[in-house]
């Protein structure tokens, strides 16, 4: 076990544990805050693996923007202090979610665990920022562009939906 192994394991454990807490807690805002911890720990994993840029973008986008947006939406609607029973799911939902999660975990494990055996101990490395850029805008440029078009379409659609709702609201007497 190298130091990197330990660091990776620690970051991974924190990520997994806070993810579990984020799903099980009854406090809506706490769930969002646990999500912050989880995403941060994932960024830590990237960092241990030497993908510094990815880690920083993870923090910048997910912690700095996405979770802030989630928190903002929560506060704007309803975020009481203390446990909130309304948000808990029914037993059926829980069972289904557990099965689904177990299935995804099994799938990922089946793919990744053999890989881990090949790679062995955790190594720093990876392409670095320059390499990442070259990969992204070289090999992967079409998926990248397709994704951005998808996001753009979603954005326009969201705008259209909001506009429609407002139009209806104005049309009502």
């Amino acid at each position, binding site marked *: 076990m190298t130091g990197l192994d330990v660091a990776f394991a620690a970051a991974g454990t924190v990520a997994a544990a806070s993810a579990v807490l984020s799903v099980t807690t009854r406090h809506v805002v706490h769930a969002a*805050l646990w999500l912050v911890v989880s995403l941060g720990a994932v960024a830590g994993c990237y960092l241990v693996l030497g993908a510094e*840029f990815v880690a920083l973008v993870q923090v*910048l986008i997910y912690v700095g*923007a996405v979770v802030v*947006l989630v928190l*903002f939406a929560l506060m704007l609607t309803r975020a009481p202090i*203390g446990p909130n029973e309304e948000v808990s799911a029914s037993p059926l939902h829980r069972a289904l979610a557990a099965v689904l999660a177990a299935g995804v975990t099994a799938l990922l494990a089946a793919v990744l665990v053999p890989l881990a055996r090949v790679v062995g101990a955790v190594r720093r490395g990876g392409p*670095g920022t320059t390499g990442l850029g070259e990969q992204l805008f070289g090999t992967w440029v079409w998926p990248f562009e397709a994704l951005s078009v998808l996001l753009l379409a979603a954005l326009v659609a969201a705008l259209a939906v909001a506009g429609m709702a407002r139009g209806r609201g104005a049309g009502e007497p």
Partner: protein
Amino acid sequence: MSPAVEVLVRTVAVLAAFLVLPLLVGQTEHKVMAHMQGRLGPMYAGGFHGWAQLVADGVKFAQKEDVTPAAADRPVFRLAPAVGLVPYLVALAAVPLSPGLVGADAPASAVLVLAATAVGILGTLMAGWASANKYSLLGAMRAAAQLLSYELPLVLAVASVCLAAGSLSLTAIAGAWSPWWLLWQLPGAFVFLVAAVAELQRPPFDMPVADSELVFGAYTEYTGLRFAFFLLAEYAGIVLMSLLFAVLYLGGWKGPLSGDLGWLWTLLKGFVVSVLVIWMRVAWPRLREDQLQRLAWLGLVPLALLQLALTGVWVVATA
């Protein structure tokens, strides 16, 4: 020097800068603001022109009772000041004063600084929500709305500089700087300055802590040291943004005698920028919430995109 000792020395140096520079900016604000309003400002603490006023304030804050409201969400409430403060410490460590003088030389330090400041917002949000006070909550919501809108132009402006320098490292960006950037990156610099002041929630963008409407926004319920931490975070934010502006747009350590005194140039330029930030506070009234959003989305974002396009075209054309 063994690595452990070096890490220790660097940490202590960054910590010292983190504690001293905000005090300097704070004292400058006291004095500059006072004289801009025809007053003298603090005159007694410490003897000479009240230089120790902020130290005295710190002692006062340390003596005060640390109150947590009964209805508050205790753990979140108590954690919030740390979440608000630590990111600025991390970010300050990555800002270079001269090519060799930097707390932690990260390869992608520009992104690191932006990411760290983005995390700092969470502290305000947590504070506002956990205080169980409607003014705090309103303040936090305004803060969230404002920071989300100004984050984008800020990142775009920095991206333009990174593109121009061809690097994500602040040291390399300042190294690639030439006086010609002052003109070429002017729109970007303007966007950065405005967005940075807005990120710091400083007047004229202090809607989230508008005292006449929200008492003190998200920090209303805080007392004692925790409150002092939020204040320190604000002034550390000014230091950070000013230094960042100096490094990104003013060439950092470039100037006469920059061989040995480069760090002084960076500090000096940063100081000038922070005086500008203070000046804006004194001279201009607060923006309304809708004006804030309008300025961000209709003014700064298009301008930043324009700058980005301009930089891109130039870089490709000269490559």
